[in-house]
């Protein structure tokens, strides 16, 4: 399904490269022991750059919340309305949230709280992006 293709920048490139290897990674500050996503040039808490590292995630999470888009400002998404906008809380650190459309789950039927796991889908032939599916 066509969708806007993320354009990696200096900070985000490791994340998108990892997606292409079907790995979901986030930044972690070793000084603060805090994960952060989306990635940034420095730690949000201590401002350090040197202590930021990329770490693997479990790729598991829970559905944190859901809304339904009926009138998107993003042209590419308008033919797909109404569609799910779902927040995913990462199992490793529920403060870390990802976005999802929960493909295959009808709008108004998103089971908030359900366990999910990451999968990777094509935004373009060159770029995979994380998506999520309900487990079991």
């Amino acid at each position, binding site marked *: 399904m066509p969708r*806007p293709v993320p*354009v990696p920048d200096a900070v985000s490139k490791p994340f998108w490269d990892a997606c292409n290897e079907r790995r979901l990674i986030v930044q972690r500050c070793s000084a603060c022991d805090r994960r952060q996503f989306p990635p940034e040039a420095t730690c949000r808490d201590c401002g350090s750059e040197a202590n930021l590292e990329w770490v693997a995630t479990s790729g598991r999470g829970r559905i*944190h919340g859901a809304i*339904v888009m009926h009138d998107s400002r993003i*042209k590419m998404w308008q033919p797909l309305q109404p569609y799910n906008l779902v927040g995913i809380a990462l199992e490793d650190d529920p*403060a870390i949230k990802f*976005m999802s459309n929960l493909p295959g789950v009808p709008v108004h039927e998103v089971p908030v709280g359900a366990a999910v796991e990451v999968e990777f889908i094509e935004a373009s032939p060159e770029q995979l992006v994380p998506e999520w599916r309900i487990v079991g």
Partner: protein
Amino acid sequence: MGELLRTSEDVGIWEHRGKVALVGRGHSPVYRRWDGKDMTQTLGALSILAAKAAMEDAGVTPDQIDGVITCPGGQSNGALMGAPWGPGRPYFAAPYDTEDGLSKVTAEWLVRELGLKNVKYVNSDGDNLFMMVGQGAQAVGDGKCNNLLILYPAGNLEGRYQQNESTNAPGPTQWTNPWGWGMGIAYPFAEYCRKYGSNHDRMAPFILNSRRNGLMVPWGYYALHEPYQLTTEDYLSARWICEPLSMLDCDRPVQASACYLMTTAERAKDMKQKPVYVLDYTMSSNRPRSNFETLEDTEAWTDAMARKVWKGSGLHASDIDVFNPYDGFALFTQYFLEAFQWHGVKRGEAHDFYAGDISVEGPHPLLPSGGNIGTGRTRTAIFTDCMEQLQGRAGPRQISGKREIALAGGVLPVNAGWTVFSSIPDA
């Protein structure tokens, strides 16, 4: 954007508490859009009307004005233009020979077109309106000027704005647009309803009350152009934008301008209107913990705003007689209401409160201005109402009982400025 001030959680009592006052307000008529042709409805033309009205209201002459602050107004939120616009478009004869005066108004443009001869403080770099009121108060308190015009132009051109036709998602959009994210204000509201056992329908009394109050604002969009009350059925049948955010939870973008005259408490005594003293302002700028705003973020941010207002003003929730929290979108006003615990409303109780008597005649007159929902996206109704309530000239919107202290603020939970006003300088 201007510098944010008084942002610390440990903010103390403002050094100029009660030493600065609002003494005049002026509104242009409010139109839905500018058609690009009618030169009487440019943002510049409307700003001249508003500024002259503010000076007239205060009884101050143009020669007495020594400061002007404004902020990039123009198209709503500085958003992408809906219609083809910008460099390459045809311009008009002076003073409309550039974008300045058409879709934006700088302080320099206003100074020139009003022929203000004694201005020593010119600032076109104010932050959004809610911050700019504080920035203006600080400038007057610091002695940078004595009679300050605070101008807020709100523009709306033809077409739909912020439409994104890109097939790529660069910059911050790489984290949102691949999933078609948008209207994220609906997300914490959905969480709220789940957490506290409410639903979107229960917003109806608040929306209807705001429209009703707005119809009592003579310059407002609805009073001028759609002068009828909404029904509950209208609200419940409004089309979804991003469920649970419907069309009637959104404010109507408008073409309008408003202006305030702020001065020192000393000078205010001799002016035409009863002074409305500024007791405190504070500002907050936040970021979600992760990729989008959650209810947890929203509640933490708004709680912090309330703590700052109480620390900065030395007042408490029970002191606030007039409460005008921002409402564009209407879905977030409840977080402000609950954070400030106005009339004792605690987390999860806003919708119950809405179901009670929140009319201006009743015991809990929430948002007596009608806000943006009742007047259009001028953003200024809340400040004008605070003035008029404290001055006793709010007409049919005048609330009963004690009216010494007013609180107004916005824009969003993520980014807000709050100002405390009083009819007495040492309240």
